[in-house]
């Protein structure tokens, strides 16, 4: 602050702060270390403190009543509560102030529990001195608190669900069945997601498609759901209750209203490319239907490989091919279709964008990509599936001739592995491996199945029983040890899987016809891009971060944006569905309220000082600041503007602003600096050093 003139604060009599200090015992959490009564007695001596009381549990109903009564009795206009972290009970006490007719922002929490008695349990004398300091500082700041206004904004009655896998489908259906309008946006040409690729599901061995496709059809036909497939989210503006989402619908080059999915086009198309739905194990045409039950059941043209769209006759300059158009009996092919940009307004957004699988090429010792009969679990899932490359027969790639008589499954490929930046457990691999081994034994009864594991994690309903069935009923051999390498026996031309059976300490070598790598989950690239657009934070594992791991598992740092399914963290189908419906529940609860309240402690721009440099915009983690072009004295200038619905009051912009043009309300420089000063010169002197008196207080 340097050598600034110090003007003594001379508050007018009626504006003079009248502070009440309330010291909580928190049972024994505080009272077992320090004497709350003595602390209250000390607090009563601090500047402008009119009354100081202590009580066993301030957060209890009688505790709150004590505060309300005191506010009225002593005509208090500011309140200090010495108790726990504001993270816990600030909302409780703010309500308490409001019910006593006081602006809720005239509250200051002095955290004498987490910051004091919990960390100084064994040194009560030091703890008491520290508690005194904490209360001194809180009282100092309380002297300078200002009443703040909150605003109300109405919520658009529409929910957007991004991602049409099992999580997105359930989130959309939950909201649609409750009567809300839902826009379901899916990046790929069909809804269904990863679950559509699976053969059967653990632990019941339900046919995955049989249980999924009715859900897909229900969502597609639902009167409250509008489906946007083959559509990406390009931009999101706005905030809770009022998001403006820009979508880009990619061209299918096939008119959905005309296509009857007869398949003649694909029959005639001369171009063959690896089929992504079969993880590249089979081929599809350049015009294709992703899979027979795809929704919408409409063919589409892959513009990267279609001859009409990519090649021209060098002489005539005309496109070559176009055979699909010639043969389509419905005349549905339209090569001139262009991407379509769509702008929609929604009140809430649910993200259910799912996962990718780990690419085992990152672990070259397993030979994936080098040996064709080392495959990933998702590839094996396609081999198991009746719509897959072998029609459900278990055969070895690449020639699909040999039935594997000895198969090896390896757990934890790309999970629990710090070398590939994945210390986490992918949660589903233990169980899907047990399932795949069982399905193998059912179809190749004379075959041998080995599973190499580190730990079998079967914590779910019916999971342990299912795993035991794999061992006891199907005779699958589980060996505890992670495989270190897969090599090719040059003489016998077979794969040798090498591990330690850690339970006997013996090195085990298994000659295998087929090796299945149980690959873990990874966040999708498209999810990461979406996170950038929405300014959503990621967890250390790279998945989308929830607001609170236990209490708010579907909320995010951006209000009105909810997450579910594997976009949040690896999980199985039942957990994805449960979380999806929870996310829908929160979105519906937001819409049902009809209105959202802003917080009072937002950032405020002083336009006279703002130079429009944009540092604040780049600093804001919540996308709450944008630059507005204005005309000031005949000149066009840029000025920072705060979206109070997005602003969390973190103060990063205020700290970053080189001109001091942004004020973080409720955490003003005066408030914070006075607390620091109070540490050295005491509250009275610190308050004298404040240049401007606190503005008049009016009961809200």
């Amino acid at each position, binding site marked *: 602050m340097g050598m600034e003139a110090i003007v003594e604060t001379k508050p007018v009599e009626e504006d003079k702060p009248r502070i009440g200090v309330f010291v909580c015992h928190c049972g024994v959490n505080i009272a077992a270390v320090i004497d709350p009564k003595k602390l209250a007695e000390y607090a009563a001596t601090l500047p402008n403190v009119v009354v100081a009381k202590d009580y066993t549990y301030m957060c209890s109903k009688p505790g709150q009543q004590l505060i309300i009564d005191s506010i009225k009795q002593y005509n208090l206009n500011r309140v200090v509560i010495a108790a726990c972290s504001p993270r816990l009970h600030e909302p409780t006490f703010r309500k308490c102030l409001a019910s006593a007719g006081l602006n809720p922002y005239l509250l200051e929490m002095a955290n004498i529990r987490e910051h004091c008695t919990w960390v100084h349990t064994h040194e009560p004398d030091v703890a008491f001195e520290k508690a005194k300091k904490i209360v001194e500082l809180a009282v100092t700041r309380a002297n300078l608190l200002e009443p703040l206004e909150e605003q109300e904004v109405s919520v658009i009655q529409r929910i957007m669900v991004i991602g049409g896998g099992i999580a997105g489908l359930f989130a959309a259906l939950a909201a649609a069945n409750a009567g809300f309008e839902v826009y379901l946006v899916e990046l790929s040409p069909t809804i269904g997601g990863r679950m559509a690729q699976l053969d059967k599901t653990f632990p019941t061995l339900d046919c995955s498609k049989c249980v999924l496709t009715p859900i897909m059809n229900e969502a597609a036909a639902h009167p409250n759901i509008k489906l946007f497939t083959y559509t990406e989210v390009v931009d999101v503006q706005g905030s809770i209750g009022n998001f403006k989402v820009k979508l880009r619908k990619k061209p299918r080059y096939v008119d959905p209203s005309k296509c009857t999915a007869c398949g003649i086009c694909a029959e005639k198309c001369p171009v063959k490319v690896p089929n992504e739905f079969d993880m590249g194990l089979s081929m599809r045409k350049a015009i294709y239907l992703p899979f027979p039950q795809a929704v919408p059941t409409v063919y589409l043209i892959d513009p990267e490989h279609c001859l009409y769209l990519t090649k021209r006759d060098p002489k005539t300059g005309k496109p070559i091919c176009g055979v699909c158009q010639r043969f389509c009996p419905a005349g549905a092919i339209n090569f001139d279709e262009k991407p379509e940009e769509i702008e929609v307004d929604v009140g809430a957004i649910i993200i259910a964008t799912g996962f990718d699988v780990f690419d085992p090429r990152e672990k070259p*010792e397993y030979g994936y990509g080098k040996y064709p009969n080392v495959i990933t679990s998702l590839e094996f899932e396609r081999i198991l599936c009746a719509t897959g490359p072998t029609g459900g027969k278990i055969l070895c790639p690449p020639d699909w001739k040999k039935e594997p008589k000895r198969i090896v499954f390896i757990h934890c490929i790309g999970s629990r592995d710090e070398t590939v930046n994945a210390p986490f457990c992918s949660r589903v691999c233990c169980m899907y491996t047990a399932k795949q081994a069982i399905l193998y034994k059912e179809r190749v009864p004379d075959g041998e199945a080995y599973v190499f594991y580190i730990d079998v994690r079967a914590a779910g309903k019916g999971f342990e029983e299912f795993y035991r069935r794999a061992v006891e009923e199907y005779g699958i051999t589980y060996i505890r040890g992670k495989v*270190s390498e897969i090599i090719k026996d040059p003489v016998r031309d077979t794969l040798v899987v090498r591990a330690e059976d850690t339970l006997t300490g013996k*090195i085990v070598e298994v000659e295998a016809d087929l090796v299945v790598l149980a690959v873990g989950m990874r966040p999708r690239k498209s999810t990461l891009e979406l996170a950038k657009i929405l300014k959503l934070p990621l967890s250390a594992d790279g998945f989308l971060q929830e607001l609170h791991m236990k209490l708010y598992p579907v909320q995010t740092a951006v209000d009105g944006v909810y997450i579910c399914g594997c976009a949040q963290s690896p999980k199985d189908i039942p957990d994805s569905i449960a979380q999806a419906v929870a996310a829908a529940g929160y979105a519906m609860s937001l819409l049902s309220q009809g209105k959202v309240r802003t917080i009072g402690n937002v950032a405020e721009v002083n336009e006279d000082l703002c130079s429009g440099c944009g540092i604040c915009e780049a600093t804001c983690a919540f996308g709450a600041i944008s630059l507005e072009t204005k005309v000031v004295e005949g000149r066009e200038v840029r000025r920072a503007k705060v979206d109070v619905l997005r602003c969390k009051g973190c103060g990063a912009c205020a700290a970053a602003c080189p001109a001091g043009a942004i004020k973080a309300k409720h955490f003003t420089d005066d408030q914070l600096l006075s607390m620091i000063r109070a540490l050295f010169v005491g509250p009275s002197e610190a308050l004298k050093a404040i240049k401007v008196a606190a503005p008049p207080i009016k009961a809200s």
Partner: protein
Amino acid sequence: MLSAQASVLKRDVISTRDFDKSFADEINRLVENSLIKCMDCGTCSSGCPSGRRTAMRIRQLVRLARLGYKPMLSMVDLWMCTTCYRCFDRCPRKVNITDAIIFIRNKAFKEGYALPKHIKVAQLVIDYGHAVPINNEIRALRKELGLPELPPTVHSFPDALKEVQKILSITKFNELANQQSKFSQ
């Protein structure tokens, strides 16, 4: 004698009396606290080229070190590692296994658990400045290849050998090398 020592692991019971937490902590600290990250998956031992030919299980050595089982210093297995670093390379938890083994070996050596052959090699370093000094065969081979008979090392510079010996003496390598191996007693 060696086989009797090698059977330490096969004792029926290892007791908490044998666990020295400070030993475990020290080794853990020396490898940047990575020892404690081991989850006993066995990737290290299954890839270990030495473990396929000997009874040494690198995972079990890490396990014993984590338990603070100090009697492991007398295990011959400790000397079966070729320090090829494959275990460290493949460890999914980035446990610096090979360096841990080297630190444990240093301790073992100091306590007299050095193989007689290792002591002989140490003597060679002191006497000739080389763990593998030149012999007539190599002299002949070098001559045949058109090289000077002696390489440009301490073999060619007797004064430099004296310097090497001085360093070995200052670092007390001599004392270590002159010890009686507990394995040969």
